[in-house]
């Protein structure tokens, strides 16, 4: 079975840096961007390796501020 492929878009300026999304990613590709500070003054969430994303939407489900959009490839 081909692996599911997903894509995550994070609205970095609305992120409050709570880190809840980073703990629920099954492939551990969501981390806090320690090199960036957003408009609110937080390190926003980012994805390290989008090729690994399976589009499970766990990160978006956990996000209290609904800043994450998830797409998945369907064949």
């Amino acid at each position, binding site marked *: 079975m081909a692996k599911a492929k*997903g*894509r995550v878009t994070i609205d970095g300026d*609305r992120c*409050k*840096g*709570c*880190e*809840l999304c980073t*703990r*629920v990613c099954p492939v551990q590709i969501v981390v806090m961007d320690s090199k960036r500070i957003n408009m609110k003054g*937080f390190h926003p969430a980012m994805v390290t390796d989008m090729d690994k994303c399976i*589009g499970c*939407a*766990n990160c*978006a*489900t*956990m*996000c*209290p*501020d*609904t800043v*994450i*959009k*998830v*797409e*998945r*490839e*369907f064949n």
Partner: protein
Amino acid sequence: MMKTVFDRTKGLTSATMHYCPGCTHGIVHRLVAEVLEELDVLDRSIMVAPVGCSTFIYDYLNCDAQQAAHGRAPAVATGIKRVRPESVVFTYQGDGDLASIGTAEIVHAAMRGERITVIFVNNAIYGMTGGQMAPTTLAGQKASTAPLGRDKSHHGMPIRISEMLATLDSARFIERVSVHDPAHIRKAKSAIKKAFENQISGDGFSMVEVLSTCPTNWRMTPVEALGWLKDNMIPYYPLGNIRNPKEVG
């Protein structure tokens, strides 16, 4: 072809929520908004906002709203539902609002079997006013008014509102859920959906108690707070359906 599997629901406004980072109010707001959109009742829904951090829910959900005096949301919702029975009327209340100053209102709304939906967010503390002990604060849990922790010999044991209301014959549906991980969030959403479907089909009082966190006043990181909820709150406030007589009996 890429298909969107998760996007911001139309049930939420574009406003940025004022809640502290990691506050689970944001998750519960979104679940209610998604359910109202899925049931296609946003244009005939009226929420009754509480007093507490979540007062500002009227800025975040895309439906009509009325703000009630502290604890009185079920009484206000009763009036709205009786005058406008075609509307979908719900209250959104925290534990300081519902389980303390508003205990009389919630008990009697449930006793009368009012056809309203109640979303009860229990995070075992007063959030907005600065972390004081609530009736739902766990034994041993520290609060600004109980710096050594809740002492059961002095303050008694916390109240289980859902179990108490489940003794009332006119309460139609009561379930306790949690939002500490994605699987439980999905379960919470289906309970909230059921609570609204009951109202739409004309059944009586429905309430969903959502176990939540308050990282700021619990003095924890948001991630630690979710772990604390799972390890400490769920053993005292067990999850699951507490009352659904139609399906059980």
